[in-house]
């Protein structure tokens, strides 16, 4: 099946089997691997992307559904060679170990900050709760979101 998606501000044409998930299409057809497979069931947040500004599980969204939204992945967060505030804040706070969950956290944080530019600790915890991290960088990620909020 042919589909046309808007990803990171660019229209991309795809020919994939019906029912292909957005996650698989991003990673295997469009070469955008920042969204990662973690569970395929909407339970871990590793695959999060922005759909019209909201954080969604790309493992549960079909390409067909995605065609109705503007999709942004972590590859599209920086603009003009400049890291977004949330990206630099994660670097500054060293808010990662293995980094496998980082893309998903960045997406949740970006969606939160767009809604609520100066979130409280609890709002940050709630917004990032869908993002599982086994390495245990949660406290650093909270600090990073706050740092980014201060810079906005």
């Amino acid at each position, binding site marked *: 099946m042919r589909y046309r998606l808007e990803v990171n501000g660019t229209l991309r044409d795809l020919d994939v089997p019906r029912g292909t998930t957005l996650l698989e299409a991003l990673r295997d057809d469009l070469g955008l691997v920042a969204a990662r497979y*973690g569970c395929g*069931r909407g*339970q871990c947040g590793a695959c999060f992307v922005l759909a019209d500004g909201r954080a969604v599980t790309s493992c549960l969204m079909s390409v067909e559904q995605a065609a109705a939204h503007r999709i942004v992945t972590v590859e599209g967060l920086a603009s003009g060679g400049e890291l977004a505030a949330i990206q630099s804040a994660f670097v500054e706070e*060293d808010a990662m*170990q293995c980094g496998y969950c980082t893309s998903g956290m960045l997406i949740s944080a970006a969606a939160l900050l767009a809604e609520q530019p100066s979130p409280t600790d609890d709002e940050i915890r709630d917004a990032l709760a869908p993002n599982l991290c086994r390495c245990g960088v949660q*406290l650093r990620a909270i600090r990073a979101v706050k740092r980014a909020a201060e810079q906005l």
Partner: protein
Amino acid sequence: MIAQPNESPRLEERIRLEPDGRVTVFSGKVEFGQGIRTAFAKIVAAGLGITVDRVTVVLGDTAQVPYDRGTFGSRSIAQDGEILRRAAALARRLIAEGRPLEGPIPEDVPVGPPAPDAGPRRVEAPEIVTGRARFVADARLPGMLRGAIARPPVRGARPAAVDDRAARAMAGVVAVVRDGDLIGVVAKRQAQAVAAAQALEIEWTVPPAADLDTVSIPINEDAATLAALAGAATRVAATYAMPYISNAPIGPSAAVADVRTDEATVYAGTQRPFGLRDELAAVLGLPVDAVRVIPLMPSGTYGRNSLGDVAVEAARLSKACGRPILLQWSREEEFAHGPARPACALDIEAGTDADGRFVAWRYDEHTNAHGYGGTLDPRQAAFTSGRNAVPPYVVPHLAVTLHIEPSPLRTASFRSLAAAENVFAIESVVDEIAAARGEDPLELRLRNTRDPRLRAVLEAVAERSEWRERPRGDGRGLGLACTLYAHGTYIAQVAEVTVAPNGRVRLGRFWCAIDPGRVIDPNGVRNQCEGAIVQSASWTLLEELKQRDGRVATTGWDTYPIATFRDVPSEIDIELMGAPGEPPTGVGEPPGVPVAAAIANAVFAACGARVRELPITADRVRAARR
């Protein structure tokens, strides 16, 4: 197993000056989120007097780096960090003298002061936050296909009959592979491979459970122990238990294999690139020199990547179909077929005299093999399944026995091996004795500790947490635990919890004093401490791999909850106490070790419930409170 440093390291194997003035550094260690790439870059940059951005670190590529036994036991900085420190000092001298960078690296090269904590926090960070980083599952080779494996219902089951007609007819399927007991599908797309593997109709024969014996290994013998216990003024006997848990990496295991007739290249998230190379060579029937293992970042794993399972499977599929294969396990496979951390039952009895000095201590540790590679070697058992079974206190009569029991599940090493279970039992029973004597558990520990470094971390954490002053009770409690981890890292921790009327435990603040010898990268050490504490708190409060006779019922995060942003401590306070003159002793594993006891002791302080079995669920707290 204690890996030995490379016998006689040579400079040309470790540091290369590139024509453009950059420096390439080689180590057989691998990075999986613990920050060693950054630490090594900083060590060499400081030694050479150059900036970190001029240093490239090559880790684990078997075609490029010197042999290494593996990355485990928090030994990377102690082993390769020290070699690189000397290598950089030697290289600097040779460069100044205009001589080539080659020759043995002597033990006694004069080295400069330790690297300052400057430069980037993590050299990979910019790539990770922009999505440029490449994990194993992101490797893409020309002509690459996807694999999926048909899993038996239980370990050891063998395929009796396979009907692959439906699977073969499915879209995208290129091959159904049958190689001994391995049955897999190769397809053009990931979803196609997974769907076809599910469509295979396989009759499995489940062999009767092997009747294996328990192996008992004395770790410390003292025939007078029981008599001495009988005469103790205060004596506590208790049994503690922990369930099987999963490494539960956020990204399930993955590997990419490109196997040709006379050579093979495998991209893997292994902790043992050379061990994996040898294993692959044997399985593929190739000479070891024809196999190249290139480590790529896996999702963080915490021991299970000492096994080569996914890489070997990918290689077998690739060999069978003659194409490069990416094999990515599903979440369910990772829970059901990844190696688990052993379960244990810990039977302990300890006694003090009337002055609160230990007189005797008996400990019977019943667990499974915690081995690297999953096998049991009795000579290594004391270091793996028996790790930290001996208490760090002065005990005149000590009898410690390790009992390794057969496991229906595949088990393997998991961060700190058996230390986390042993220290849970040891530090819980110490707390119980203090309670039985009606005294402060800090004073009991200090009275029975001669080691000045252990005393120092205990005093430090007590001061930071205001242990002696902070009010308790009314559902709020503080718990203390400490250890001297295997290789010499000292830790003491205080957990603060609140226990709700329904028994639910919430973490408040958490304090940790750690003495890991010389600290090379303080921020990296803090990050490792925080991560280990969060992960271990998750084991303690939430985790249990559900299984019956080896059939794992856990399939996803819904049935295996781990700590989320809502569950982690409100704050983690870390005091780094390493003396610059002491050799570095490792930080990846030790900070997770005392956590379970610190939390269990805090729960007791908060509400009087002594929970001796993990996870500490609300049900268990309510039952113990009655």
